[in-house]
């Protein structure tokens, strides 16, 4: 029996995207939470919690891009032109906030401007990722392996709503992260923001689920028509359990549980999306097998990935270990 490389690659990329969403999610979230915190010192502590890790986090986005390019070049050559403007703007947002990380501490007169660049860059990147997700879910016009739709096909109420959904998701992740990594006043402030944020997130997850099921017959069929509902049902149930867990642990003053539960919530939301589109990689018609590169290409890249990815995960984990613990004012970081 031949291994189904397309399935393996789809799994790897799904994993990579998920890791990206959660890791860069919490550091983009920090940019989104900046407006809620006014004190200069507290903002610096917020930045310092992610200073050593943010570009490692962002590397998973590049992995997602490169993995798609290597294993599913057709996705690359259709999804990217289809979502041209949001993707360009996403990159612009990432440029601004990446540069703000490095430059903010060195600027004096223009520090307020770089703070603004950090907030807007983070928000723009997050929102555009959501738009792209929405555009993907609602489907992309493809014929003969080429994108044949219009320049603004990605724009719809649904995709905008997905953009807002991703903003809230990232802000919740960032909030959970800060509860874990800080203490004192800042932590208290984050505890207060956390519960309403997760409440809104639950609402958004609910609306997106309903919207896809009602608006997209293929998704409704996946969930209710294929006889697998029993297997899928734990997903929505666990979502509710997680949200309840966040409420409870925030109230009881847990340090790290709110963050881990939000991670779990993201994982569940992500699984829901994967269930909705599988085995398509671009709805409504492009399956992972249609989009695959040649078997030699997938095999060659797979050998390296299977050897190297575990090693990468180990030393990323070690980096988080090295920088574990609370971050306080005056600790090593950009600004001291």
């Amino acid at each position, binding site marked *: 029996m031949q291994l189904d490389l397309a399935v393996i690659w789809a799994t790897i990329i799904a994993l990579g995207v998920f890791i990206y969403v959660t890791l860069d999610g919490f550091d983009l979230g920090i940019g989104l939470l900046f407006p809620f915190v006014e004190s200069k010192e507290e903002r610096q502590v917020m930045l310092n919690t992610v200073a050593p890790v943010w570009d490692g986090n*962002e590397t998973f986005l590049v*992995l997602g891009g*490169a993995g798609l390019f290597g294993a599913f070049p057709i996705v*690359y050559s259709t999804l990217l032109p289809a979502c041209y403007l949001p993707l*360009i703007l996403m990159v612009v947002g990432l440029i601004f906030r990446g540069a703000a990380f490095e430059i903010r501490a*060195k600027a004096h007169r223009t520090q307020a401007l770089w703070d603004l660049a950090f907030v807007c860059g983070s928000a723009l990147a997050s929102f555009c990722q959501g738009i792209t997700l929405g555009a993907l879910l609602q489907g992309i016009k493809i014929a003969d392996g080429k994108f044949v739709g219009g320049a603004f096909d990605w724009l719809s109420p649904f995709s905008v709503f997905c953009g807002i959904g991703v903003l809230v998701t990232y802000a919740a992740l960032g909030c959970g992260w800060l509860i874990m990594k800080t203490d004192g006043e800042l932590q208290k402030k984050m505890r207060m923001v956390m519960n309403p944020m997760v409440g809104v997130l639950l609402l958004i997850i609910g609306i997106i689920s309903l919207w896809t099921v009602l608006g997209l017959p293929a998704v409704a069929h996946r969930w209710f028509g294929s006889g697998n509902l029993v297997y899928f049902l734990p997903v929505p149930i666990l979502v509710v359990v997680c949200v309840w867990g966040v409420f409870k642990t925030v109230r009881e003053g847990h340090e790290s549980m709110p963050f881990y539960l939000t991670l779990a919530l993201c994982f569940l939301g992500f699984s829901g999306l994967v269930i909705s589109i599988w085995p398509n990689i671009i709805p409504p018609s492009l399956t992972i097998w249609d989009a695959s*590169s040649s078997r030699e290409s997938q095999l060659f890249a797979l050998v390296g990935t299977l050897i190297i990815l575990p090693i990468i995960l180990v030393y990323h984990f070690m980096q988080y270990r090295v920088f574990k613990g609370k971050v306080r004012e005056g600790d*090593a970081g950009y600004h001291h």
Partner: protein
Amino acid sequence: MEQLDALLLARLQFAFTVAVHIIFPAISIGLASFLTVLEWRHLLTGDRIYKDMFLFWSKIFAVSFGMGVVSGVVMAYEFGTNWSEFSRVAGNITGPLLTYEVLTAFFLEAGFLGVMIFGWERVGPKGHFFATAMVALGTLISTFWILSSNSFMQTPQGYAMVDGRIVPADWLKVIFNPSFPYRLAHMTIAAFIVAGFIVAACAAYHLLKGRRDKPVKRSFSMALWLLLILAPVQILIGDAHGLNTLKHQPVKIAAIEGLWETEKGGTSLNAFGWPDMEAEETRYALKIPHMGSVILTHSWDGEIHGMKEFPKEDRPPSYIVFWSFRIMAGLGMLMLLVAALGLLLRKGGKLYETRWYQKFVFYMGPSGIIALVAGWVTTEVGRQPWTVYGILRTVDSVSPISSQQAGVSLLIFVVVYFLVFGTGVYYMLKLMKKGPVELTPDEFSRPNPGLHNRPLDVLKKE
């Protein structure tokens, strides 16, 4: 017509974004290895000056690295947004190579950069050195993969065509394609030279300002030793690279040299001139008999095919590569002069006291970057009209996007790049203006001297 405009705009955008991008990785590649050497010397000798230098140059490295990461993300996505046909046809080859770059290089860099910049307090000296070495190794591995991919586009081999798409047949042949070893060596050394001139020019600036402390003098000295070895080596490698190009892309060489006719009994060199693509001649040519053969074939009367032997639609724009090549080669000669003069002055014991020489080195600071970009222009424009040489034309590589889309995104990138990377470069220059700081023993014995030598502290004192 619309498609043609989109093509032109997409090409402009790629040229602009890649030319800005390459500067930062080049600085990072060179500085990362320099930092590894500094930390290694510090561990070995216990000499504090090396650590002073490390703390200073690592700040500049961090800014440059950050700029390289964010401008690199743009490149990766441009393949899909603007060059989707290229991605569709060549993605089977370039995709996996890019995947390997991300896996083996980017993660190595990103995984250890945090420890290298922020981790002095959290790991031991050896652990920290390991982190620095891993970051440097990451930059070199990254060079390996991206140049393999680029070289495949120049001299493809080990592939088959299936349904109009390029598929890999033999990965070793794909990776180690004919121009790869030359290009890899040329680029790696170019990156070291870029960093070498930045370090040397920064030190020269402080020498001119009257500073004579050890970190400044040692930066100057180390950079000039490096250039003394690398400037001549780079010229030899460039020469070998030229022979290789003549073999695999003869029309590129003809365009670089502005040669139209195949001359019998020895080709003369057009030292200067203006190649005219329409008239098929090089105007105002200053010819040196036999020199073309001597340089390109290492023989008195070696034959070189002129551009007229190739169909018009296969010729690269000679007026660009003719001049970009001469800028690169001319700067290479000047670099050799800097390195040789440095050796003479050193022998005479006047290296730190010769003002005109320090001025010369100071003005040569950006020479590495200019030569690097000119070299890339030569090889990339020289590959035209192809994206994958002989297989896929540039005109067939572009995405089905409108000229409005391509134009708007180009405009956005130009504005954003000047704003963001302009500021990044400004702060790098500002740091360099302040220069390395010698720490007092008291500051040094703190658990984390790095903390008291952070960029802001340096700038605050102004």
